[in-house]
């Protein structure tokens, strides 16, 4: 075996594990969005009478903010790959702030919607609130992962933690992209 062949290194197992998690979660979101479309074509009036179509501006801006928060995560992953612990910390912290503000806003909007029409109203409200809730839960889990990374990186950067940063960054790319799809789906009645 040549020296070049022995140095050919695949991505770490943890990264592949995240790839498969993302694959199965994409399938989950795909099913939810397909359900939205399926239910939409069971009914003539969508959303039902008495429920206003969702407003476009704020959710769109928020979705773009979430996409933007992937940039500092990408930066953190690169910094961690180089072994630069401080810059990685800074990147994650920056992303965390944006994501936390995002989630706060979204939760506020969510309960605002709930106060206007109940999830128990009909099929529209059921899938609307379920789809959004599943996405917000994914953001919430991502924030917990960020906090975990900050705690772990505050002391030392090990190969294991470097993989963790790369995997969590990958998770955030997925959540950001899926956020665009989810937003486009729930805004469908307002197009």
């Amino acid at each position, binding site marked *: 075996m040549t020296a070049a062949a022995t140095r050919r290194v*695949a991505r770490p*197992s943890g990264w*592949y594990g995240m790839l498969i998690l993302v694959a*199965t979660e994409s399938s989950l979101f795909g099913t939810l969005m397909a359900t939205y479309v*399926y239910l939409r074509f*069971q009914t003539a009036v969508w959303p039902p009478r008495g429920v206003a179509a969702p407003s476009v501006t704020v959710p769109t801006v928020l979705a773009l903010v979430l996409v933007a928060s992937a940039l500092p995560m990408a930066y953190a992953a690169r910094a961690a790959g180089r072994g630069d612990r401080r810059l990685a910390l800074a990147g994650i912290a920056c992303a965390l702030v944006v994501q936390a503000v995002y989630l706060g806003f979204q939760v506020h909007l969510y309960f605002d919607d709930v106060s206007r029409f109940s999830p*128990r109203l009909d*099929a529209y409200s059921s*899938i609307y609130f379920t789809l959004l809730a599943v996405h917000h839960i994914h953001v919430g889990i991502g924030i917990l992962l960020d906090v975990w990374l900050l705690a772990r990186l505050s002391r030392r950067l090990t190969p294991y933690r470097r993989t963790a940063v790369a995997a969590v960054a990958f998770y955030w790319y997925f959540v950001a992209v899926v956020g665009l799809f989810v937003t486009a789906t729930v805004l469908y009645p307002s197009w």
Partner: protein
Amino acid sequence: MTVGTVARERIERLDRIWEERPGFTGWLTTTDHKRIGILYLATSLAFFAAGGVEALMMRSQLAEPNERVLSPGTYDQLMTMHGVTMIFLFVIPLSIGFFGNYLVPLMIGARDMAFPRMNALSYWLFLGSGILLYAGLLLGHGPDAGWFDYVPLASRKYSPGPGIDFYALGLILNGMSSTAAAANFLVTIFRLRAPGMSLNRMPLFCFAILATSFSLVFALPALTTDLVFLELSRKFGLHFFDVGRGGDPLLWQDLFWIFGHPEVYIIVLPAFGIATSVIPTFTRRRMAAFPLVALAELLVAFIGFGVWVHHMFATGLPEIALIFFAAASLIIVIPSGIQIFAWCMTMVTGKPEFRTPLLFIVGFILFFVFGGLSGIMLAAVPFDQQVTDTYFVVAHFHYVIWGAAVFPLLGGLYYWFPKVTGRMYHERLGQTTFWLVFIGTNVTFFPMHISGMLGMPRRVWTYPSALGWGPENLVSTAGAFFLTGGLVLLAANLVVSAWRGPAAGADPFGGATLEWTTSSPPPAYNFAVIPKVTSAYPAWDEEDRQTDAGRLERGELVLEQGHRTPGTTPVDGHLGEILEMPSESPWPFVLGALATIGFAFIIANHLVMAASTFGLGAVVLAAWHWKEPEEA
């Protein structure tokens, strides 16, 4: 293999490094894929026994018209639990959990799975899901809406008790377990193959597990979503399936079968993999059409995603949808046919020696062809609409699932028994058992084709004598008891042989794959030296096996400095790095237990307690990852 002093020292060091805690607690904390496999084996066989008893109780009730052995309510619970048990708690955990876990790392020359602790977690989640599902039945609130649990019957209005909640949450937990297992297999197969094992040299069994894992990763979310919709409807009054509020009960069926049909191939593909392991060994030749069989395995899994509507031909869907799905269902015959011809050609052109494992594989091929033919009949829409929801369908899927999926598992139990226990089973008794089980299967399930044609509907608790279904049902019931007798003999053979059978040695059958190159049972680290691989039949490459002895002496890829296994590139299998693997840990067990308790709280409507339990789970997850493998 003669072992020199240096080599013996290396082996002793490996023994020390890979040794796990002894005794009962060792089983709770183990991360050894072989011990986890054995846990899966024992648990899934216990559930198999439970599912079998349920089947016998139902057959007793159906033996004659107007029987009163069981009450209708009990019958419904037994019928539902029989289906759920056999699919989610027996076949999948046995084929993927036991055979996959035990064999994949051995066959690819690795020392463990890619994520050993997650592997343990998969098992504990599976056990938790089984406990939840059976807790319902034992508390008298078993699920009773059939294994596919159609709404509106399963809605709160028509099934007010907690039975359906046990079903839904038990299966969500089961799905988490299977997803974790599938992710683990995918990464293991792509990352941990021994250097030199490029994808085209990977055993076909691993291709089958690969295809199954892909299917699981993409199919399970549909079931999970469906179950979440169901629970949101039942517990919080949301409307997904309720026509009066803009929902649609067919949504449940669509999502269920988007999962449910790939599931059929998830069940049967590992069985294909076992067939392609057993046949070369007992025919003394390589598999015919190796690359075609590998591609056919992947293709079956892929096309399996496009056929779900054939479970719904009688639901009034538009004709164009029916035609599309009928055509897709017929296309799947092609990759299945490729495999059948490859198995047959391998046997015809080889020197078959019909020992017990091969007999079961031959039985499997016969049943698969037979069940496949009734499948082609059912793929024709007009015929399906005639016999839908009759015993003809029950006959078809029992030929496929019992005959085609479980027969190879039984053959596999005999085939790898010497590897797992280090002892031989009784060959004559094994062959007799095969004939009993083979005849029993036909006597049980063949008459169901006829009673179905005569119009007997599925899922009925009893039937009046004037309809004339008595004789077929009596024969079925007699066959079921006969079949059970055969299975008891099988169990007796294996249990007694595990204690008193003659020593088997490393390779009693002259197998082709790497598991036969190590001792029986294998040491905790599987291989003293990571084996050299230059073909898909490495155990038959004698020169390579002789070089292994020298490599052990020289310390080449012995990796006796720690808990290590080589990591290779995904396609070519070039050695890339040495991976430090985690060792035993109590956390997977704790997390699995917490998840089960949390789900039980949801069933009992204690949502705050459930949330606190999951919060505790997050803390456990942090504790799990606190100590990194490099620091161990």
